[in-house]
């Protein structure tokens, strides 16, 4: 639970980050440049927090 609270706190603090990363994404796609997938799925797959059930 502590890890989870830390993650939440980090995300609360980084609300600002999400907002401005979204603007960067808009700029990139407006100019036809490749954008990054910053959603939870790639992050969680990398961590092992999302996986195929056995």
């Amino acid at each position, binding site marked *: 639970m502590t890890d989870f609270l830390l*993650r*939440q706190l980090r*995300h*609360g603090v980084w609300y600002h980050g*999400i*907002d*401005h990363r979204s*603007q960067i994404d808009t700029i990139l796609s407006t100019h036809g440049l490749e954008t990054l997938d910053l959603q939870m799925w790639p992050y969680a797959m990398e961590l092992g927090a999302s996986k195929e059930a056995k």
Partner: protein
Amino acid sequence: MTTPPILRQLRHDVWATEKVIAHCRTLSDAQLDLTAPGTYGTIRRTLGHIVAADTRYLARIGQVVVEPPFREDHDVSLDEIAALLEKVKAAVERVFAGKEFDPDRFVLDTVSQRAPGKPPIEMEPWMMVTQFPHHGSDHRAHIGTILGAHGIETPGLDVWAYGWEIGAIREKR
């Protein structure tokens, strides 16, 4: 009792979407159909997408708010979006105000469509709880971009505005 941080975060997210809806009620239909390059689509479609996705994130951790939400490939009214958001808001309070929610215990994702023969996906629920505000913030930023690009006022949605409104930040007496 201390309010769970997760609930505070999701309350802010719901509040921010409510603010956008309230702001959009001051716009004309033509303005709601505005878009800008690099964003999701029109203001109206983006708002509908935010709230419909909220229901899917909750469904993935076993909390079905409504099945199914409205079709996102159709224009929906602000009233329909607001009504669905009310249900999301109630579900957020119901699920995250208590102590039963375990963010680290794997749950089966019954929403993802899997190819035949592929095993289902399981996930730690913190993932959806983090995706919920990430997704909402991302698309609300799109709406802010559209409004700004067309010279229309944007609402203040950050945590400072929220904190002042609910009295979580104030001048010391």
